Every structure is written in C-alpha cells, then in structure tokens.
C-alpha cells in the first residue's frame, strides 16, 4: 500500500475514534460555550451611561444651569442637570447611583461632591461654567453692558493635530493580540498533549507492536499527528464560528478589518506550531512506561507556550521593542508571539520569510529527531526511558 494512503488510514481512525469518544464531544461543546459566554456576557451587561448626571443643590447652584449647558456643549460632554433640594438629598442620590456629581455653590466658592472620583473633563466643564457665572456677576456689578463683552466669553477653540496617529482599531488590536496568544497556547498545549497521551496508550497497551508489524513508525507517527491536528482544527473552527455568531447577535465588539486580514496567518502559525510541538510531545509519549507518566515528560516541553503567552502582554505594552522582535523568531516562542505581534501590526515584511525559514528548518529537525526517539522508545518495555536511551536503541 502507498505510504500516504497508510498515513491517511491511521489519521482517519484517530479522527473517527476521537469523535466517537465522549471527551472530544464534551471539549468541543464546552470550548464553544466558553467562547460564546466570553463574548456574550460583556455584551449583555449594560454599559455605563455616557451622560454625566449633575445635581444642582440650592438656588445659587441652579443659576449655573445655563453656563453648564454651554460649557458642556463646547466640550462635547453630555450632561443631564437636575435640581436637588439640599446637600443631604444630593448625597443620598449619589449613594443610590442616580447622580454622578452634585454642585453646592457658596458666595465665592463651590464644592463638587462625587462618590469616588471626578473625571478631569467633567471638572473642567464645571470650572468653566463657574468662571462664566462669576464673570457675568462681576461684570453686572461693575455696570458693564453684557452685550459688549459676551463675545469675549465665547471659548477659544483648541484643536489637536496628531502627528503619528494610533490606528483607529488600536484597542481591538490589543485584545486580538492577547486573545490569539492565549488561543495558540491553549490549543497547541491541549492537542499536543493529546498526541503524547495517544502515543503512550499505544505503547503501554502494546498495540504498537501489532501496528508496527504492518506500518513504519514514521507512518504511525505522522498519521497520529495528522488525525489529532484535524480534530483540533475542527474544534477550533467550531469555537471560532460560535464566537463570531455570538458576536453578531450581541454586537459585543467590532472586529476590525485588520484582524480578519491576518486570520490566514493565524491558521498557518497554528499548523506550524502544532506540528513542532506535536512531534516533540509524541517522542516524549514514547518514553513512558505507564500512561500516568505522560504529564511528567511533557510538562518541560510545553513550558515555552505559557511563557510566549505572557510575553504577548509585553508585546502589547511595547510593540516596538527589539528584544521582543528577536525572541519571537525563536521557534518555541514563535507560535504564540508572532501571531500576537501580527495582530498588533508591528511585524516588518522581511520577518515573514525569516520566520518561515527558521520554522520549517526546526520542524524538519524536530520531526527527524522525534521519529528516531519514537521508533526507539515504542517497543521498549521496563521503566521510563531517557531521551538518550531511546535514541541509542532505535532499530
């Protein structure tokens, strides 16, 4: 039989048996539900009202209504003003959450009461209104006709020119970077470990010897990685589609076009990263004597994944740091860090061919070394093998 057909047969069995198992179905549904919940719940929580509700305590404060409206409109701040009988009532309303701030005005001073903090913009609007009211009163007392000086009271428009503007979708990019880093970490660790577990089961149940009487170890290894990779991609697709549908329903976040554009890149990095880790983990699975030992042998190999995920936060904080750029080229960190950097939009064009060459070369090296360890370890009984022992005893 052709080698490729054998690999496909092995992969098909892997997919069929996994889909038949309850664990796979449970993980698929649970992942999709988690993603949907993560998107839907923030969307369903009512957002903070964008209007600032200000209570005016007493007649003196209530005289500020007109200047407040003017200052707020100049600052493009939405305010809702209401008259409050006394300071105690104002405090009660703030405590109950129906007022954001209350203004109490004395003869030459004023107090703003808030629950915890007064946003700078709100403070500036209130100050401008107080200044205007004070100015009007003073001018009236001095007998200056208001009509003559009113133009002087119109605020001077101050425009800001941004020389190096942030992309409009900057926040969405930050979220996308961290999210894609997390997704890569979890997915590669989950399915990579599944490969190690599958190999360990074949070894410890002695199924491996039966299989090796018909197929080469390389075919067995390739078929297993392929089958579990397909199941993993399928589960990811279900989760992503469920998430997009949930997002469409609750309008939780606008997905910027730039994120859509790099989706194929995420797919490529998942496939490359999974291949790299899955082969190394398969070799680790062939070392064990008992299935319980899988975690012990795989943990050190998986460690770069959470490290890469943590580094995505640093990449968000300082996207242009050279050291981050360089370590994102290191193959164990590439699967988490590069997609995050791509989402941030700080990857230079020449980095793509560089990373492609480094990744392909390291996958080749890992597949070669892992196949040797795998073939050497699969039929060895007795206690857990060291990497060196498995390599020395390959046939």
């Amino acid at each position, binding site marked *: 039989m052709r080698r490729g057909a054998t690999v496909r*047969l092995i992969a098909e069995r892997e997919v069929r048996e996994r889909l038949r198992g309850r664990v796979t179905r449970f993980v698929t549904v649970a992942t999709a539900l988690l993603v949907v919940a993560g998107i839907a719940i923030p969307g369903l929580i009512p957002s903070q009202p964008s209007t600032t509700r200000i209570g005016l305590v007493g007649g003196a404060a209530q005289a500020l209504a007109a200047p407040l409206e003017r200052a707020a409109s100049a600052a493009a701040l939405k305010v809702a003003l209401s008259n409050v009988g006394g300071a105690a009532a104002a405090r009660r309303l703030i405590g109950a959450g129906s007022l954001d701030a209350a203004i109490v005005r004395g003869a030459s001073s004023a107090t703003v009461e808030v629950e915890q903090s007064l946003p700078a913009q709100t403070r500036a609007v209130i100050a401008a209104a107080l200044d205007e009211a004070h100015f009007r009163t003073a001018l009236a007392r001095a007998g200056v006709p208001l009509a003559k000086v009113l133009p002087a009271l119109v605020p001077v428009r101050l425009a800001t020119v941004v020389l190096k503007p942030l992309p409009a979708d900057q926040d969405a990019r930050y979220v996308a970077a961290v999210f894609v880093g997390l997704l890569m970490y979890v997915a590669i660790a989950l399915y990579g470990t599944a490969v190690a577990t599958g190999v360990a089961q074949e070894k410890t149940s002695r199924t491996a010897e039966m299989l090796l009487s018909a197929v080469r170890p390389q075919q067995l290894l390739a078929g297993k990685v392929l089958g579990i990779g397909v199941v993993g991609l399928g589960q990811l697709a279900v989760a992503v589609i469920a998430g997009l549908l949930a997002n469409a329903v609750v309008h939780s976040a606008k997905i910027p076009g730039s994120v859509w554009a790099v989706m194929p890149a995420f797919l490529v990095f998942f496939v490359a990263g999974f291949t790299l880790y899955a082969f190394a983990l398969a070799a680790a699975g062939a070392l064990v004597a008992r299935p319980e030992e899988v975690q012990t042998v795989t943990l050190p190999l998986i460690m770069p994944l959470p490290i890469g995920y943590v580094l995505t936060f640093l990449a968000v904080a300082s996207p242009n740091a050279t050291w981050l750029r360089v370590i994102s080229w290191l193959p164990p960190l590439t699967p988490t860090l590069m997609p995050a950097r791509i989402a941030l939009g700080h990857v230079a064009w020449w980095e793509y061919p560089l990373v492609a060459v480094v990744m392909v070369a390291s996958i080749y090296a890992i597949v070669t070394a892992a196949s040797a360890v795998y073939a050497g370890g699969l039929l060895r009984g007795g206690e857990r093998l060291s990497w060196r022992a498995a390599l020395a005893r390959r046939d």
Partner: protein
Amino acid sequence: MTAGGGETALAVSGLGKRFGELVALDGVALGVARGEIVGLVGRNGAGKTTAMRAVMGILAPDRGTVTWEGRQVGDRARLRFGYMPEERGLYPQMRTLDQVAYFARLHGLGPSAARESAQRWLGRLGLGERSSEKLVALSHGNQQRVQLAVALVHGPQLLILDEPFAGLDPDAVDALSDVLFEEAAAGAAVLFSSHQLELVERICRRVVILESGRVLAAGTLEELRRELPAQLRVKVAAPDRWARGLEGVSVERSDEDGVLLVVAPGTDPQAILSAALAAGPVEHFAFESAGLLDLYRRMVAR
C-alpha cells in the same frame, strides 16, 4: 536448512542481532514451506521473539537476510504476513469489528473487503455476537481470539505466532490448532513458538530449537532423533552387568525396567542382542522413540 515439505517459502539466514553487550541472535537460519507448520522452541531468552520480530520487520537485524519465495522481504511483502506478538495488545477502547477491520485495511484490504473478512473471522471464532463491543468489555479468552482474528483477517501467506498457545484453556488450544491446520492446508506457512513441547510435537512436522541465539537443531522429529545417539532399552532376566564393556554402547541408567543404553552410530544392534541373550532370557529389546521434550533436554544438555 531444508524444509520438510515443498519449496521453502520463508528463508531466514545468517540472522544476527546484538543489544549492547547481549547477543540476541547469532547467525540464525531457518525455513518454512507453504503448507507447513514449524515450531520454534527454546528457553526464555534463546532468541525466539527477536527472530520473529526480525522476520516481521519490527526490528532491524544487524546482519542476515529474510526472504519470501526467493525475494528479500520488504514492507510490501510483510503486508501478506500475519503476526501475533508475545505481548498481546490491541486498542482497548475500540469496537471489536472496527478494530479487526482496521488492521485488515492497514494490510491493504479495501473498506468493504476488510469489514467482510473481519465479520467472517469473528463469526468463525465465535465472536459474531460481540463484534460491536469494545475490546475491554470482552473476557481474556475472547480478547485472545480477537488477537488471532487480527493476525488472520487479511488472509496472510505466512503466520508468525509468538507463544500463541500461552494462557489458553484446553478447548481454545484445540480451536487454535484447528485454525493452524486449516491455514496450513490452505497453503499458508506457519511458524510459531511455544514452551509446550508436547503441543509442538503434536502440531508440527518440523521443529527448530534455538539456544543462546543459535539454531541448536532443526528438522523433523525423526531427523532430530538421528542427530542423537539412539537409545535402546533392554530387559534381561539377569543382572545388568552384561552390558558393560560392549563396544559403542554406554549405560545411560538402569532400573526395574532394565537398562537404557546409548548406542553409538554404526554399532550393530544384533551384537548387543547376542550379548543380552548370552546373559539370560531377553524380555524387552526396543529402540526408544524419544519425544520432543526428551530430545530437547538431551540436545540442550549436550
């Protein structure tokens, strides 16, 4: 090494394998013809499993050749071999029929042919009703039968069975022997290892004895007997002293059934009979037809 029956189909020669300091195989040669059942015997560690694994391509020998019908055995030829390893093992969570059919497919059968053949073998081994159950749900004996079905499902031309009778109850032993006889009658070559020598003697026409990675002896029981000096039992109604000093004859032991003499090749039995008659009335005079167990012990002790 000549096969007792027709043309040697499986020919192994000069097979050598070391594991570090340990010499597992040291120039092993053996042959199995189509239609023939050959028994591979020897103590634990003699090299039986290593030799079988080398034939199946599960491990690569350091030297030597394995040929099937005159051609070097490669991956393609091995798909026509059926194997049962000493340490049994199949997917515990996989359904029986799916499992047997899967192994048929790995050996090159198409999807429907694989299923049909799997169904046929499971039915024949009495597992037709259990074919949708997972392997773990079956009893130990039934799991053994599934293992046999997996070895046979693709209609192999050569069967390599490592301790197939180990742990079987007497009924299962008979059932397995019947299957082996039928497969051989249908033209398959069968090589199996066993420690149950009386079983090997009953099933096989030819036997290969391995010892420390070498072939100690090989051939039919008759041929093996000829390799050893003949044993002659004589009972004379007189003390056993008469046998001492006869040329080419030594006394192995003497008991109430007379003396057991080891007779060197070329010695004339008539001379011994004359000596016995001269001593007294001869009650018993016959060459012992040693069983395999006895032959094995004498050969290993040599």
